[in-house]
């Protein structure tokens, strides 16, 4: 008995011991890849590109905040909810530690790191099935777009853009170690524009004409560059690129009576780039709009001012400001389950860019009016006929508020036209969002705070 028991124990211990030593404490994660294995294959890098688009969908990005907060800041959305961080936008009193501006910053930069991983990994993939140039171009476009969004929120000058304002830190290589993550000082606005424009130009050259719904292609990059030139007040270039997109005949405006279908149905003929959501990959946009009785949280509501801006018989009113149930919301976001798509570029923007750019240039005023009236006609409105360039610009800017309600353009228009003070801001330094306080602190103040925050 004694011997049997002892040998049993010794055997048991020995087997356990051996087993334990070899494997018990040497384990690999089950639910994620170890980062050191990197993006090494075509499949990895293709998944990394999809992961790059995924960052745009974040609730801190196009999944709500970046544009909805802009709309609150502009007064086109009313804050009817309870988030104190949203209230700071409504009261035009952003603090440097605002959760939302902090999260937006971190989310965009996480997106930049995703694109940098693709850009760094793709060149060494030698799989013949891999569309290398297109892959790099997709990632570079997204990176340029990320920096554009950063610059237009955290950079520039209170008076507008391309005027020698401040920029943001630039990271162009992936962060793989803690050393790579060392803080970098803010670049100038001009330096950031250089990165943005180089990326977008690379994309225009190297992107395919078509990468499928929801992904960027040559025409998306062209249209986005038109917007960028508008922001930079480079009117001729903006007009030219907008015309390229219009002349491609690839996109057509929906009839005014169907304006709501741009949103209620997905991927209309006028969508240039529409961020895709589905039931497995959702946003909380309608949830933030809809009242509690409809399963939402009533955080935001269409502003009364927005409704009042519509001319009589504007076919877009019922989409922009609902009257049915729920009232004062929008038909642009109706799926509380979260699978509404988000419009990033639509054809009507190209018409309005061209209209404004030509008026600013004070040339081809008739063409400018045609472009403006293309959008007005679709909305069921009478033509605008005043040929004074300043009046046309004024009309275009108003048209843009209505045409792009709930799409986040208004704040950019206020900023680029130096209209911050005219829109209820007693402190024009608030045109720039604060750099997140944690960013300034974590960098040991290497990353400078925006003026007066």
């Amino acid at each position: 008995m004694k011997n049997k028991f002892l040998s049993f124990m010794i055997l048991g211990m020995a087997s356990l011991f051996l087993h334990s030593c070899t494997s018990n404490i040497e384990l690999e994660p089950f639910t994620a890849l170890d980062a050191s294995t990197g993006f090494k294959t075509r499949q990895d890098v293709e998944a990394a590109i999809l992961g790059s688009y995924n960052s745009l969908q974040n609730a801190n990005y196009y999944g709500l905040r970046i544009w909805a907060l802009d709309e609150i800041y502009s007064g086109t959305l009313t804050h009817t909810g309870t988030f104190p961080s949203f209230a700071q936008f409504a009261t035009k009193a952003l603090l440097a530690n605002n959760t939302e501006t902090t999260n937006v910053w971190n989310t965009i930069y996480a997106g930049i790191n995703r694109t940098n991983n693709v850009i760094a990994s793709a060149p060494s993939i030698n799989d013949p099935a891999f569309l290398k140039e297109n892959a790099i171009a997709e990632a570079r476009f997204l990176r340029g777009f990320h920096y554009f969004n950063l610059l237009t929120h955290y950079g520039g000058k209170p008076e507008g853009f391309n005027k020698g304002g401040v920029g943001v830190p630039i990271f162009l290589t992936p962060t793989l170690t803690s050393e790579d993550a060392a803080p970098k000082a803010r670049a100038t606005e001009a330096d950031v524009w250089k990165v943005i424009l180089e990326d977008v130009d690379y994309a225009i050259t190297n992107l395919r004409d078509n990468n499928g719904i929801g992904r960027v292609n040559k025409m998306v990059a062209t249209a986005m560059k038109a917007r960028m030139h508008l922001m930079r007040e480079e009117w001729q270039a903006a007009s030219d690129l907008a015309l390229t997109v219009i002349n491609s005949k690839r996109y057509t405006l929906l009839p005014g009576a169907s304006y709501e279908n741009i949103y209620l149905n997905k991927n209309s003929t006028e969508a240039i780039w529409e961020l895709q959501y589905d039931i497995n990959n959702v946003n909380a946009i309608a949830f933030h709009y809809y009242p509690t009785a409809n399963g939402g949280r009533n955080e935001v509501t269409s502003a009364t001012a927005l409704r009042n801006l519509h001319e009589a018989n504007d076919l877009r009113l019922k989409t922009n400001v609902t009257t049915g149930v729920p009232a004062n919301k929008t038909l642009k976001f109706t799926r509380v389950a979260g699978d509404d798509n988000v419009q990033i570029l639509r054809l009507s923007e190209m018409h309005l860019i061209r209209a404004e750019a030509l008026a600013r240039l004070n040339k081809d005023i008739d063409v400018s009016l045609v472009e403006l009236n293309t959008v007005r006609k679709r909305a069921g409105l009478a033509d605008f006929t005043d040929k004074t360039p300043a009046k046309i610009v004024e009309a275009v800017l108003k048209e843009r508020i209505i045409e792009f309600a709930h799409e986040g353009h208004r704040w950019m228009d206020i900023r680029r036209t130096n209209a911050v003070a005219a829109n209820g801001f007693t402190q024009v330094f608030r045109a720039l969002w604060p750099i997140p306080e944690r960013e300034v602190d974590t960098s040991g103040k290497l990353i400078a705070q925006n003026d007066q925050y």
Partner: protein
Amino acid sequence: MMKKFLTMMLLVTFSCVTSYAQRMITGKVTDASGEPLIGANVVAKEDANIGTITDVDGNFTLNVGSIVTALVVSYTGYNTTDVKLTTEANYEVKLQVGQLLDELVVVGYGSQKRSDITGSVSQINSGNIEKLVVTSIDQAMQGQAAGVQVTSASGTPGGSVNVKVRGNSSISSGSQPLYVIDGVPIAEGNFSQIGFGNQITNALANLNPSEIESMEILKDAAASAIYGSRAANGVVLITTKRGASQKTKIEINSYYGSQNVWKTIEPATGPEYVALIQEMVRNRTGNPASLPSSQGLRNLDADPATYPNTNWQDEILQTAPISQTDLSFQGGNESTKFYLSGSFFTQDGIIKGSGFDRYSFRANLDNNVNKRLKIGNSTSISRTKSLRINNDNNINGVLSAAFLTASHIPVYNPDGTYAKDVNASVENPVAAYKEPTNDAFNNRILSSIFGEYNIAKGWNFTTRFSLDYIGFEEFRFSPTTLNSGAGVNGLAVEAGATDLNLINENFTNYTNSFGKLNFDILLGTSFQSNESRTFFGQGENFPGNTIKTLNAASVKKDLSSGRSAYGLNSYFSRLNMNFDEKYYITASLRADGSSRFGANQRWGVFPAFAVSYRVSEESFLKGNNTISDLKIRASWGIRGNQDIANFASRGFISPNNNYLMRAGLAPTSLGNPNLTWEERTDIDLGLILGLFKNRLSFEIDLYEGVTNQLLLNRPLVGSSGFTGINENIGSLKNRGIDGSMKIFIVDNSKFTWKTTINASAFESEITKLAGTPFAAGFASWVQEGEALGAFRGFRAERIFQTQAEIDALNTTAREKTGRATALYQTSLTRPGDIQFKDLDKDGVITTSDQEILGNANPKVFGGITNEFSFGGIDFSFFFQGSYGNLLFNNTRAFAEGMNGVFGQAGSVKNRWTPTNPTTDIKYPRAVLGDPNNNRRTSDRFLEDGSYLRLKNVNIGYKIPSDVTKRLGLSSLRIFAGGQNLLTFTKYTGFDPEVSTFANSNTAPGTDFLTFPQARVVTGGINIQF
């Protein structure tokens, strides 16, 4: 009990080799009042192999042979007494309560006589636990042990409990002690994946406190470092009840209690609320004619007096039952002993919709295979059911909604549907408890088998195989009557988690003496392997609200599963040595290898060293009438904390970053191959003093614990693409004093009165952080040089009474900043708003005008227990309290916010108005949107959280044994008691014992719409056959 068990083991093991001369004696062992002591040890003085245990009547029979001259009679909690044998055959032995020195105390991988202990160990016996009305074993420690701070996060039935042994030794890793039940380290924590707000489940609530024989809390490094990389937060050793060689004792213990809330907070009435909103709107627009509708607020324009009033607290609070019934069988013979028990506990919460049930069973068996080999098992099987409710920081929470829903909203609309405030997003509080289904079940098996082999005299080998299995299932259904179910036509979640720990421990110990030198050597190994799995499925769009299972969901989404694992390999040894039971040395060493740490840092070594000196054994004190016990001890040791995520050292590229219904990958964390355990180094100095034959005894410990290599998420600039990386960078220092005192004030055969007091104080200081300070919770702040648990915010200085005051400050702001648009606070600051203090004196209020406002750590905490017995009556009361801690009452930031549409407390009637120009900074003016941000994090919401609480009162009457005998019972006791009967506090919230961030290290002491503790009145009966 443990001693009884061990003695039995020894007895049985050696019974075959004792002499054969026959001399039978009988006797009866009683306490001072003549009540029989069941299970007292009776052992021959000359030969420990000759002995027995008293039966249910206190009687014993023993064959003492020819050489025995005296018996040693002992019983836990009583003085051990020698009985000289005469020619008599029958002996009556009365034991006096008191002397604890010879009691056995369980230590890691063994047990020791109390007098031999060199470390700091607190012991809690079943007697202390049985009287309490507690759900879980961790709650049973509250106020009972010096240096152990126990705080229930809330009154949530079966909810989490925060246990801190000697301060908080970690910032971001686990801070709960290691729990070891019958030698098996077990899992604790929360296995739920569904969010309900802040309150979480507690896997320890599966274990029935009435099965516990004793709990030993190993506090210093000397006592606990034998548990190596898991010991930094202390170790709680739990010993469950076991069988004894006696006629089977059947015991039924049952109580029933009624719980209610001990305090409510007066809400503003419906008319008061509407008047407030109207005032808020006028103050916002500056136009006395403005109505709420001008600001998009609906249904608030009418005369306030015309609105109804609902007291939402009355709608959701209830008087609720709590009860527990235990049935146990304890018995055996000299070769096999058993303890079997079954228990049912059920509790409804004082907030409607909440509750907790537990079924638990235990079987502990011991068998002597032969004189050298003992085998046994300990098995516990339990299932709990939690009825969970949304809570705390959650607009669908029951109490949360009751606070946040305005009182002018009726419960129901005229058509019978739930009325909801169109202006707010908060759920109807009644719907919040009535409509959802939120069930969680935790199934737990804790089982081990062991064998102990006596190789030679004093040399034993023990091996144990153990399993700790947790199977957690949870289910949620939100029907369309709830906001959360309305938009998606019903929403259901089913989720589950399993956690399996397999443990093998093998150790050998050798005890011997050379003259006056006594020693005990331990050597052992331990292997633990853990695997956890989860699944989660969510579905939407149901055919009505009747079928609630996922099969009925027409849209199935968020389907996911997870898997993780860790392994821990350990080698340990310990040497206990003493000379003449005067000079003691203990040295221990453990090496742990953990899969959780970086490839470069997998193994750690944890040494500890202790000395003690029993001065009272010296000749100059021996026999001293005053000083009966005097011992000093000192220890040093290193302990680790490896309670971090299983793969925290790894950088991840994570899936599920999808687009276009195609799989996407994204880098989500940075790896650190050098990541290792946190290391706490402790120094402890202890003094034990017993006076007047130990009728008065003290134990005082001074300690300093420094935790280095704190695992912190070092913040990275977000522009790098990551916000942090796990590194071992921080340091934290805890310094404190623990003291306890026991007094037998009266101790005679008629009446005993015993008082036990413990008090503790500590200071914590963060000595090193990973760079910049960071915020936690709502108002908490982690900063070098400050205590962990500090609060930071603005200082509310005063209330502006006139516009001139504001203008003057704005003028100064312009002068100081040189900017023409500079403002002291905001452009909309008006009289009645709070003036915050310009701490940096730059003329404007910015985020840098914040400072440390205090911290959540008590200056002193402890407990006082008084126990009386008089004839058959026993009475005890137990006070527990905390002094000098601050609480951040975030509930008030909402209920007294006066900024928006949330329901308000009645106290807002104190607000500033031109006709009530109050200077109380708690009550500024009411203004929609709060443009001055009066609600910002400031000392406005910080309160003194000190409290003294009559935690437990228990009175029992033991029916005289002649009566019970006639009833065929061996014992019958009836008892009544209460929990939390009295609370003395200045805190204005529901309950001062609160933490909305459950077991957070960094944000303790914050209250936000948190489930309060109940006041409980109970009555019960204990029957023994």
